[in-house]
């Protein structure tokens, strides 16, 4: 229904003709090996600024949707974008473009690791990288948790800590823990939305 289209979507329409299957594959293949630790930023630049296949608004909505759903965000994003542009073949083109080159790179890296990973020099390099990777995830945790610091200690802090202890310290099964903790956390959040 026309009345449901948000006004700002009309202000900046995305390209009229949807990209072809080949366009989709090539565009996402170009993303595959770009960017370190943040393919999403490159995806935004490519889709919104260069190709103009989406408006900034559309990009943000689809991203929010993919962060809401389980699984790797950029991969889900790619699948839903592809399907909306060119149906299931479009989704497959986007996914093979995004993942294909990376899988090949990982196979090459894995082969080198198997052959040379035990050499003392490389072993040292890998130990250094692993220690750095731990620090980088800690920075991610703090960045994600920053909005929570605005609240006084409350149920959401308890949920985060309980999840950390159950999974990181007690090493319980993820599906089991989530089946208990996710409904609890959603119920607590539901109560908070009521308070507002």
């Amino acid at each position, binding site marked *: 229904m026309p009345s449901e289209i948000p006004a700002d979507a009309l202000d900046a329409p995305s390209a009229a003709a949807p990209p072809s299957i080949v366009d989709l594959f090539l565009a996402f293949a170009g993303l595959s090996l770009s960017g370190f630790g943040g393919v999403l930023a490159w995806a935004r630049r490519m889709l919104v600024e260069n190709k103009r296949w989406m408006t900034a608004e559309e990009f943000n909505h689809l991203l929010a949707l993919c962060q809401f759903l389980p699984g790797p965000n950029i991969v889900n994003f790619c699948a839903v974008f592809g399907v909306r542009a060119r149906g299931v073949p479009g989704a497959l083109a986007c996914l093979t473009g995004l993942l294909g080159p990376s899988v090949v790179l990982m196979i090459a890296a894995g082969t080198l690791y198997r052959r040379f990973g035990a050499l003392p020099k490389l072993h040292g390099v890998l130990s250094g*990288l692993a220690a750095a990777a731990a620090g980088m995830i800690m920075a991610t945790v703090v960045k994600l948790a920053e909005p929570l610091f605005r609240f006084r200690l409350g149920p959401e802090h308890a949920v*985060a800590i309980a999840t950390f202890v159950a*999974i990181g310290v007690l090493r319980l099964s993820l599906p089991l823990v989530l089946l208990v903790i996710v409904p609890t956390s959603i119920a607590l959040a539901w109560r908070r939305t009521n308070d507002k």
Partner: protein
Amino acid sequence: MTNDSATLAALFLQFAILSFFAVGGGGSAVPEMHRQTVEIAQWLTDRQFSELFAVAQAAPGPNIMFVALLGHFIAGVPGAVVATVAMCGPSCVLAYAVSHVVDRFREARWRIAVQAGLVPVTIGLIAASALIIARAADNNWVGFAITAGTFAFVHWTRLSPLVAFACAALVGLGGFV
């Protein structure tokens, strides 16, 4: 390297289940990947897991490609493909199936509550990943110093984390870690 069909089937099943439980993104599944592949199946050691994780982080491309590297280590080229398809396929199908419904209820109270409820769970899971990688990687004070230094670098500067990774690699090359 075991690339018999039983290993591939087990790998596929584990990662396909994980695909649905990776709340907030692929990184949330790292602790369970560790539990399944290192603790239960013992396909690789704690140290190998953390090293492969680091290689995937230092490489370009989506971070989730760690599963391809892990799959390759466990079951060769078929393992890399099976792990990738299993981790990405189910969540993509789910995303496709529900995207219109979820989109329509963007402002609905249940959607806001679900989204808000998942945030602290995601934070707890990523924190658990950090603990698991740090426990395997930080064997001496140099390791701890690299972890702390990288954290500070990524948190307080806007420079590429690759700079921190390069420094960490050099310290490692010197044989200090």
